[in-house]
């Protein structure tokens, strides 16, 4: 019985890995091999696809652009959400419940609804095609999410902690930075993970708000797919490389995830 339990997660993980393997497999093949034959692993192993990406600046600047606005968005979201989540978890104030739900509604707003107005709005304030524009527009769904997650973690910290600190003569900000933030590092780690994730994977807004200077890698890929026909190997290599930043982030937050889960709230 104990052994049999392993079967379900194992099958599931194999199912998850299959398409990823297929993408990697394609990325190491030559175009002729992809088009002409069906092979389970590359017969003529080649790194040409990757070489193209690392030497052609339209490709690698795409990655840099993406990472740049994702990091910017994660920092803005978490920094703004920290005090707000504290307010929601500790105080009652006029309109707090309505405000909280209003924030959540923005997480629910379909980006497709906002694509066109965003384009017009950011063009009119001269932010079109900048990293800031994408970072700010992703705040639309990431800040509500960050507030939601952080509020959960903060509510799990007993209020006595705050009160003891004030009795000990801590000022609010000193308490907030020296005591409170260190106690919820797991929560902050998880929040950053989710902000990074949703900003990294989003394409519709990022594509709408950029043209050349801040174009994300994902948009470079769609444009390659449509213009140069059938360069599947190159596309597969670019896709494989987009998995890496995510994998690195997961690796770093894996302990936080486990710890955060112990608190029973994600």
């Amino acid at each position, binding site marked *: 019985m104990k052994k049999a339990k392993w079967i379900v997660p194992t099958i599931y993980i194999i199912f998850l890995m299959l398409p990823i393997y297929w993408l990697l497999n394609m990325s190491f093949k030559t175009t002729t091999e992809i088009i002409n034959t069906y092979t389970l692993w590359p017969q003529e192993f080649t790194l040409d696809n990757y070489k193209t990406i690392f030497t052609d600046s339209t490709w690698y600047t795409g990655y840099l652009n993406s990472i740049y606005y994702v990091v910017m968005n994660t920092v803005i979201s978490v920094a703004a*959400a920290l005090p707000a989540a504290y307010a929601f978890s500790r105080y009652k104030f006029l309109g707090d419940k309505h405000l909280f739900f209003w924030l*959540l509604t923005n997480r629910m707003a379909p980006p497709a609804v906002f694509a066109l*107005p965003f384009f017009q709005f950011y063009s009119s304030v001269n932010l079109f095609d900048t990293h800031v524009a994408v970072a700010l527009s992703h705040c639309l769904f990431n800040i509500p999410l960050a507030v939601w997650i952080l509020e959960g973690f903060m509510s799990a910290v007993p209020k006595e902690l705050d009160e003891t600190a004030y009795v000990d003569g801590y000022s609010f900000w000193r308490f907030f930075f020296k005591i409170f933030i260190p106690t919820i590092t797991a929560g902050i780690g998880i929040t950053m993970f989710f902000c990074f994730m949703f900003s990294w994977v*989003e394409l519709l807004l990022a594509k709408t708000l950029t043209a050349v200077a801040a174009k994300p890698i994902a948009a470079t890929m769609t444009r390659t797919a449509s213009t140069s026909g059938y360069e599947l190997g190159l596309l597969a290599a670019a896709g494989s490389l987009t998995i890496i930043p995510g994998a690195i982030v997961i690796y770093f937050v894996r302990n936080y995830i486990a710890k955060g889960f112990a608190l029973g709230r994600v």
Partner: protein
Amino acid sequence: MNKTINQKAWFFVIPVFVLVAFNAIIPLMTVVNYAFQETFGNNVFMWEGTRWFKQIMLSERFHASLGRQFLFTFIILFIQIPLGIAIALTMPKEGIGVPVCLVLMSMPLLIPWNVVGAMWNIFALPDIGFLGHSLNALGFDYNFTQQIGDAWFTTILMDVWHWTSLVVLLSYAGLQSIQPAYYQAAEIDGASRWAVFTKIELPKMKKVLTIAILLRFMDSFMIYTEPFVLTGGGPGNATAFLSIDLVKMALGQFDLGPAAAMSLIYFFIVLLVCWVFYTLMMRNEGNQ
């Protein structure tokens, strides 16, 4: 927790309020503008009242994409939630298996959505994709770019691949928060496995499952990039879900009025369903 009443807390909320309002209210007002007016460019607007709304509400195209959207969301929730719970229940609870499972299972969540679409496209191609090739080799006549059933099958399988892990992670979090004492008590009472699940595990997972259902509902209801890259909404309009249809109308045909009206109706439906969920969730929290 009993909260203190403190109106100054608003100062903490101001940065969030400003940032989100900047992004939400101004663009939303633009949509509202377009929804009630006709424009010929150059900032010339003519009042149209509810004409666009009537047009959308009566259009068969909208009914069809709304129907497809509900069907899709219903199917993926029906698969992902039970499957996610089942996997979370069988996952190792301690040891090296935990981080291995967590890291590997999180992988699909962190792949950009268009790459997910492209990856599944390559994976499912009937001639050179593993899935397509295998199915055809097994004797199924499989071609997701031509046959509606296959397109749906592939889109649903892709979404299950992409998002079941989120349900797994959340359910796992809920399970981890159960004290071992509960299980020991159940063992002493001689409770069956099924009783342990329905009486202990499921109630404890209720809160995270609500979050999981809410997130999956919202995200599947606004799905755009993955099916767009995988099938392009096709064959025909078979997998043109609401967002795909909307973008086609707004940016493809530039029918701004109807598109804006459709946006508002669309947003309103999501809002309504989420409000119901949210109220139920908050009520449960109040009872605990």
